């Protein structure tokens, strides 16, 4: 409640007093009767603000001062605590007010933000000044005032009757609306159930379809995999054959090259043999020649 009111108070400030006259009259000439009128005015303004869900800064503090001055210490203390609760920045000065007006209840921090019973203030007996009494008597003697009072009472009565009638009508209206809302809610529930059933069936069909599709896709994938495996096998065979042919070719080539090398080596050996023979021949020739020369000599 307090939080809601505090939040609301940020947007609307309400009014300190609905009618500025009681405060003005009390401040101008403070009398008990005027103080009581002012207290009632504050109580009415607070109730109005509660109805509008707003709190006016300082309203509880001022109402508390008025109550304390009227001798209602306990109620005043509650109002001071209300002010402190709603407006923590007011703590210091409200504590000063508590020390001044309700010192015995200083430690009592009980607060109550419910509607104020304005009529309870009527039971307070206040002393009227002779001037006020005279003015009151003068006012009461005035036929215009009496007429106005009667009119006011009549208006109040009419307003009360109208309010009762309105409340009754509103209750009936609310009941009717409730019944209508209940029927509507039932219909809505039914509709929703049917819709949910349909949706579930649809979902089931969808799921079945999806399952079939998945199966088909799996088969397809299997087939494809098999084909691919076969293809791979053929390719591997081909590659192996090619590799064998290549190896054979390489072997033949190597054999040819070895034969070539052997032939070349044979030729070279023959060549070397020939050269050796030639050298031998030449050597024998040379020794023969030297023998001849030696014989000659």
């Amino acid at each position: 409640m307090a939080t809601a009111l505090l939040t609301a108070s940020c947007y609307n400030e309400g009014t300190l007093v609905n009618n500025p006259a009681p405060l003005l009259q009390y401040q101008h000439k403070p009398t008990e009767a005027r103080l009581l009128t002012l207290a009632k005015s504050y109580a009415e303004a607070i109730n109005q603000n509660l109805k509008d869900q707003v709190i006016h800064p300082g309203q509880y503090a001022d109402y508390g001062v008025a109550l304390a001055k009227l001798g209602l210490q306990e109620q005043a203390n509650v109002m001071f605590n209300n002010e402190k609760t709603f407006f923590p920045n007011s703590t210091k000065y409200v504590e000063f007010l508590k020390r001044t007006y309700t010192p015995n209840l200083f430690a009592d921090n009980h607060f109550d933000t419910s509607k104020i019973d304005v009529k309870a203030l009527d039971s307070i007996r206040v002393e009227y000044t002779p001037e006020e009494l005279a003015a009151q008597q003068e006012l009461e003697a005035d036929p215009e005032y009496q007429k106005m009072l009667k009119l006011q009472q009549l208006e109040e009565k009419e307003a009360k009757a109208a309010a009762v009638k309105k409340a009754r009508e509103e209750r009936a209206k609310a009941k009717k609306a409730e019944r209508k809302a209940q029927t509507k809610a039932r219909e809505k529930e039914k509709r929703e159930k049917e819709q949910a059933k349909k949706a579930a069936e649809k979902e089931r069909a969808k799921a079945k379809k999806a399952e079939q599709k998945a199966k088909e896709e799996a088969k397809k994938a299997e087939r494809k995999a098999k084909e691919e495996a076969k293809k791979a096998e053929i390719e591997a065979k081909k590659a192996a054959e090619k590799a064998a042919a290549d190896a054979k070719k390489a072997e033949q080539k190597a054999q040819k090259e070895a034969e070539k090398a052997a032939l070349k080596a044979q030729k070279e050996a023959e060549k070397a043999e020939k050269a050796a023979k030639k050298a031998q021949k030449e050597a024998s020739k040379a020794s023969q020649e030297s023998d001849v020369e030696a014989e000659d000599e």
Partner: protein
Amino acid sequence: MKHTTIFITLISLLLVVSCKSEKKVTTYEDLYKEQPFTILIAPTQDNTKRPQEKSTQDRVLNEELDMAATFLQQSCVEPLVSQGYYAIPPLAGNTILQKYNKSYRELMQGNITDLHSLYGIDAILLVAIHKWKEPEVNEVVVFAEYTLRSVKTGQELMHTWVRGDKLQPVDDKGEPIELAADYKFIQTTQMEPRLAHRCLLLQGMSDFALRNMPTSASRWMFKQDQYTSANPNFYSFLMNPDGSIEREKYNEDAFGNECFTD
């Protein structure tokens, strides 16, 4: 509803009338810096000259002026609250000041820092009425001064001098006619029409002067309006018979001459 209407009218008037005047960021520079929240409204300093009570008429007039001065303090509460400040209400405020026991001059110029430490007050609003005039049967004029003083630093956060003027429409015979709004106020408060007109003028002036202040730092709008126009330090405030409001910058010397000389 009534307050909202007044507020909207005043805001739109402010925007239209004061295109060339100083911005709030300059006029209320210290207020933006200090960001006061809890404001105490001191009782009105009434500097008006009063007739000696030789007749009932004099007595009635004096009483009327006393009540109008008392009303000025009360009229400052709503505009401050609507701007997001915490205004200490009259009964509680007066209890504090009775205990504090300092004169208007001391509150205006002296050291008042203990108001913060003792009562948690950030600033004090001092209001004064210097003169009442009734140039015509259907016209009432008042010279008033509004000062917002920081309790912590003693600096003036706002200081405005206003010449308020309220005109009432008149009938063919030259007799004043009550406007619907004025009539409603008179009916609610059961005030004498002359007093009611003084109170209505003071209420209008307080609304106009204080709703021009930046909103309190507790509101999200704080600093949003710092480049909008501020009221001049001296200005005249006219409430026309048709209910419209006019504001005009006033020359300081002319204000002084009219306000402080007979």
